[in-house]
């Protein structure tokens, strides 16, 4: 549900009215409005915010690994409206057992590479993505480097007597 602190936020309140129940939680710490949304509704939320609330730009998508918490992963979307000079951050919790979420490439084409990057580095799969392959790491790489259980020096080498 929409927290009280974001009741006055124009885009957040409009989103809550248009798609009731999709907002799970939120905060506005450091004056940065952030909404946790239901992962099942991410495409509808993004489409509504782009088409009805002028968030024409998607600045980026990234992931955060909160090992050993459950749900383990967060996928974070940075939205920006040029005409309203407004920024909004969307977040979805993703379970480790089923690391999947719908792709938003149909809403913003720029999501394509960012989703590939999150897939490459965190191993989160994006359903309906046109080309979900590794982007930064070689295609035969094993593991997902930005996961917290992946050592900084990689799996292939072991350092002894350190």
């Amino acid at each position: 549900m929409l927290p009280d602190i974001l009741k006055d936020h124009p885009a957040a309140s409009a989103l809550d009215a248009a798609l009731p129940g999709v907002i799970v939680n939120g905060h506005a710490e450091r004056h940065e409005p952030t909404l946790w949304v239901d992962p099942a509704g991410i495409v509808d939320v993004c489409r509504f915010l782009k088409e009805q609330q002028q968030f024409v730009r998607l600045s980026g998508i990234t992931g955060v690994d909160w090992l050993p918490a459950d749900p383990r992963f967060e996928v974070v979307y940075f939205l920006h409206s040029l005409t309203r000079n407004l920024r909004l951050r969307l977040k979805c919790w993703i379970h480790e057992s089923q690391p999947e979420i719908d792709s938003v490439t149909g809403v913003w084409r720029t999501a394509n590479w960012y989703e590939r990057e999150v897939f490459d580095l965190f191993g989160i799969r994006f359903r309906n993505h046109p080309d979900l392959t590794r982007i930064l790491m070689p295609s035969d790489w094993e593991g997902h480097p930005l996961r917290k259980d992946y050592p900084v020096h990689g799996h292939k080498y072991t350092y002894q007597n350190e």
Partner: protein
Amino acid sequence: MRELTIHTDSISATDATHEGPPVTAPAGSRHMILNMGPQHPSTHGVLRVVLELDGETILKAVPDIGFLHTGIEKECEAKTWQQVVTLTDRVDYLSNLSNNLVYALAVEKLIGDIEIPAKAQWMRVMLAELQRLNSHLVWLGTHALDIGAMTVFFYCFREREDILRIFEMFSGQRMMTSYIRIGGLALEPPRGWQQVVGKFINAFPSKVDEYENLLNSNPIWKIRTQGVGYVPLEDLLDLGVTGPMIRAAGQKWDVRKDEPYSSYDQFDFEIPVYKENDVFSRYRVRLEEMRQSARIIKQAVEGMPEGAWQADAPKIVLPEREKMKTQMEALIYHFKIVTEGFRVPAGEAYQTIESPRGEIGYYVVSNGTSKPHRVFMRTPSFGNLQALPALLEGRLLADSIASLGSMDFVLGDVDR
């Protein structure tokens, strides 16, 4: 003594290959596949673009990136907050100070109760603008060189050398400066910097006129850039393009004006916007930006506030050498900062600034310890490069270098 053991059984022949887009055309087709890069002088780094050609026309362009991936975001999680500053230099190696600045601002936002003195803020603005000049000069020189105007390169690098000397004077380093730190600056500004920067900046506007005269009266330059590389503004925004590219397409958006940081709201400058949306107007936007940056630097030199250049935050900023030797408390803080770093309250912050290439955004997440939990770098080159197929497909192969150069990407910034 540490030993490095490689598990040879897990290495197979496929490890050496970097699979990507196809390298041959389908059988029976008249199309040709051209592999451009990763070692191509005009890609300014290690970018591979696979082009499918029908005669001289590009039908399909597939960028293949990742050759310069160094895992900087992963490494950030293993360093203390202040140590990460040295990694941010290496992300975009043509705008080191912009990356220092955005990281410092993001962490300062996360810390919350830290006030950066006016002198440090103005100094940050001045250095970030010098960095913009530096980056635009490298861009202009190499871009003109790609298109065949060789002389401009020497003129641009002449001025760039002066800027690098200024950076060296401030930080001791020409490129990897790490000069902007959490809590202010790394060192006290050197004596006599006003004269050096003032002398440079008074002469600079006439140098920009020089470049403009060299290029605007060059018919080959004009033919190769005017009307080339057009993509509608809606597509550019949808593809995540920021910076001079969209300002050359008529979109007046600059983070320095719309979401002012440091002390940009106290400076008087214009945001150049052109509507033609081709390679030539991108060149004009960057040239005009150099003039505006020179204006900002001039204002900063003339009106630089007096006072401290570091925040009054003993738990974050290293104490003065003299205090460390005479005061017990300063010695304790010094020991704590050097051995374990400082703790940053748990939470998240996203800070954006206008880099020479567009919007840089750093998303930093803290779990309350002395190391970042996550640092995500939203780099402008990564966002911009995604528009490359839109710029190339359906156009002539001969225009590809002009279009590619007009995007001004840095591969270190793309791959991180």
